[in-house]
């Protein structure tokens, strides 16, 4: 699957309180959550971002709480993918469970905000300008889960059997 998008850059340790502040966690509606995505450090992010844009970040993206509202808020803005040097553990599982793709690659220092990137999700190859980087492969078990249509579909199938 090929994804093309414009880059929004964030730093290291982007925590879940930045991605979606806890004061909004009584909401479950994706659109409302998206309106507050990244609010503490970029209050108008939801207005500037366009569907199809991509987040590129440093290490430990998604650290902090287990709130699934975080990947939901990102997806609600039409962002299909986050590329980061590394991801916090709970966020990693949550994102895949919610259909937000993640790739581990250390490219934040070599790419500018607003640049166009092209990503081949199946091979993990990321291309921009004349640069090409291959992301760390998604663990085979996660790939299997994605191929099943995600954890909830996998569970649904089990319950139907």
């Amino acid at each position: 699957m090929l994804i093309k998008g414009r880059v929004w850059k964030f730093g290291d340790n982007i925590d879940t309180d930045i991605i979606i502040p806890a004061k909004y966690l009584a909401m479950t509606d994706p659109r409302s959550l998206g309106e507050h995505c990244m609010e503490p450090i970029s209050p108008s992010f939801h207005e500037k971002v366009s569907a199809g844009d991509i987040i590129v970040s440093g290490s430990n993206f998604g650290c902090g709480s287990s709130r699934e509202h975080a990947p939901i808020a990102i997806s609600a803005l039409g962002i299909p993918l986050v590329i980061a040097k590394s991801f916090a553990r709970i966020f990693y599982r949550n994102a895949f469970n919610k259909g937000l793709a993640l790739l581990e690659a250390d490219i934040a220092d070599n790419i500018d905000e607003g640049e166009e990137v092209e990503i081949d999700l199946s091979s993990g190859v990321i291309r921009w300008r004349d640069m090409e980087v291959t992301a760390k492969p998604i663990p085979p078990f996660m790939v299997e889960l994605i191929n099943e249509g995600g954890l909830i579909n996998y569970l649904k199938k089990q319950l139907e059997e």
Partner: protein
Amino acid sequence: MGMTITEKILASHAGKEFVEPGEIIDAQIDLALANDITAPLSLEEFEKVGAQNVFDPDKVVLVMDHFTPNKDILSAENCKKIREFAAGHKITHFYEGGNCGIEHALLPEQGLVVAGDLVIGADSHTCTYGALGAFATGVGSTDLTYGMVKGRIWFKVPESIKFHCYGKWSKWVTGKDLILHIIGMIGVDGALYAAMEFDGEAISALSMDSRFTIANMAIEAGGKNGIFRADGKTEAYMKAHSKKPYRVFESDPDAKYRQVFEVDASKIELNVACPSLPSNVKSARELGGINIDQVIIGSCTNGRIDDLEAAAKILEGNKVSRNTRCIIIPATPKIYRQAMREGFFDVFLDAECVISPPTCGPCLGGHMGILAKGERAVATTNRNFIGRMGHPESEVYLAGPAVAAASAIKGRIAHPEEI
């Protein structure tokens, strides 16, 4: 080859003799926990999959602790939905109102977790129960739904990192200072995906309450879980609180660790994590020039009786600075009552502190103590991220109860020796 405690608990729940780091296992769970902000998403998924029942109504725990007493209409509606679900599915352990406390203080106190258990919770601080010698880790709402329905969940077996702690503790120093020291040393992703195992004579010397604090903040170093070997103190705690059978696991002498750190407890000072990462740790002595507007003593990290006692000792006969508000939040009704009986409430009220009902409230900027733009707080909580306790331009300094109480009196960050 030997195994660590974490590997042994995971193996026993996956029906295996042996597991090793990196292996994907399908493990049985002993408990699945959610709260008033994570359960609503979980219940949406529960409905979507068309599940009829939870795997065991005795093993699903729902705790209404974050935005309660309900802070607004949305929160009230979430709790209502969860309450109806709990009634419909005959959930034994539904906590709301007068029987409710902060989940990670409440569950051990209610005897719901014991050594050898495997617990998942839709809350990142679920790792707290590692203090009991259980494997406990935070998951998202969707994983929690899977666990609630199947009674099982998949895990990648984590590598383990050992923190061997020796030497004698200095006065006032608690588990909070140790875990802040460790996070400062390895960073907020220093234990990413790993199990953090704490042992040594200095750990044996710590109270259960201090151990809960340490395990609680494993996630702040990126850890999957924190874990302690159950010892005499753990067994005494479990016997006092639980009727559940428990199983004590020990790491083998030839167990493999990704890293082993030697930590000299005698060198650990009263620590403070400065904004805006728990790893930005300095000695309280270096920070005396920082004025503060608010102090919070509470949370799943430091809202237990030891913490309230330490605060009361310092606040006794003193008054909170006129420039500072001090909010005390006993973590559970039991702790609340004990603090009241032991006379701590008189001390707090005489010092002009506010005593709050048990709630996560201000820790995550929910309610009951939000910061305005430019305000600064010292809090015994676990996260000091940007805007965590209110306005994005407010600041949180993380400390143990002794520094928090001393700071409340002085209106600036203070060491208890100054009182």
